[in-house]
């Protein structure tokens, strides 16, 4: 039996990615990274800033997301996100730029703890990207 399922990533502007033959997807869920294989239980969860890894038999793709929701049901994985970047499109300059913007945002006073946590997560995730 095949081990493959379907993944779809959509952002408000368009359907970002639709793939039928993925074997595993790793998403940065709110309470830690979560790997999803075929026949996973139905689940809805949040994303925090981090990397989505999409594995298929032949290739491996990485995407950076800032937020989003994942829904897995009947071997369909839907990821809704408002900001997503393909890792191969990101270079150091761009990452630095996003980090700078996030850092600026985190210095503002009028944000609540949860938001600050998310921003910190984002900065950390981006900084880790820089290393590899």
């Amino acid at each position, binding site marked *: 039996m095949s081990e493959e399922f379907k993944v779809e990533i959509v952002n*408000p*502007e368009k359907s970002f990615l639709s793939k039928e033959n993925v074997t595993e997807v790793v998403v940065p869920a709110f309470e830690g990274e979560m790997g999803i294989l075929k026949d996973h239980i139905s689940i*809805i*969860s949040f994303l925090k800033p981090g990397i989505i890894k999409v594995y298929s038999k032949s290739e491996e793709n990485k995407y950076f997301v800032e937020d989003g*929701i994942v*829904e897995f*049901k009947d071997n369909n994985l839907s990821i809704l996100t*408002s900001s997503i970047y393909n890792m191969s499109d990101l270079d150091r300059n761009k990452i630095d730029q996003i980090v700078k913007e996030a850092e600026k945002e985190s210095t503002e006073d009028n944000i609540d703890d949860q938001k600050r946590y998310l921003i910190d997560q984002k900065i950390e995730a981006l900084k880790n990207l820089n290393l590899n």
Partner: protein
Amino acid sequence: MASLDDLKKRISSVKSTQKITKAMKMVAAAKLRRAQENAEKGRPYSEKMNNIILNLSNGISDKENAPKLLTGTGEEKTHLCVVMTSDRGLCGGFNTNIIKKAKQYFQKILKENKILKIITVGSKGYDQLKRQYKENIIEKISFKDSKNINYFDADKVGKIIIDRFKKNEFDVCAIFYNQFKNVITQIPQEQQIIPLKSNEEKETSSKDSYEFEPDEDEILSNLLPKNISTQIFKAMLENSASEQGSRMSAMDNATRNAGEMVDKLTIQYNRSRQAAITKELIEIISGAESL
């Protein structure tokens, strides 16, 4: 009857108007294609979002403590209407149709002695509503400066709405926009976003139990504000496609009418030119005869 010179001037003026409307039609057609593509591409996101929320709200066990954005405040006293129109005119009945739909709703609310508050998005809506409902308009938003519709703008509107909701400024929120069906048909829509109305789809959504991480409440309270922005974004996309479609058909009509007018005027021009020549000939001949 107008003199030959006048006719000539009118013909050329109608012709130059026709050139403008024709150009506008071309531009609208080009923009329409893009807008339509965007609208279609944007649909999966809002549909998925809606589905997830439906599944969530079906699964929620404790309705009492559910977020207010979902269930409402329990009252229906104050209505907030978000009227979404374009920033530019010359697009046929596009804006008027939305306004008409909105006004019907306003009248219904006022008749029931409820409080009406209006937010207008797009300057044309404000222009048309300010005469009658000036004191009801609490905010006007316009995105004249942003070239393309983007999620960021929609998010701004969404945040304004949520802020006002949190301050208990209203109980029910509805948005008005035109849904794009095809180039000649746009349907003015009224959609209630707070409290969320679960529409007929309820039966189709499965009763599968989901696993939630973190728990339902937290997901819902995070998701609902996003859903509002998404719905507004969807409305903006539909609106822009409708605007271009409406403009295209309006300009197409205008071009055709201008063509007809030019034809009519040309006939009139030729007739009176002929009449003038005949008159002159008669004058010459009768002058010669009398000699």
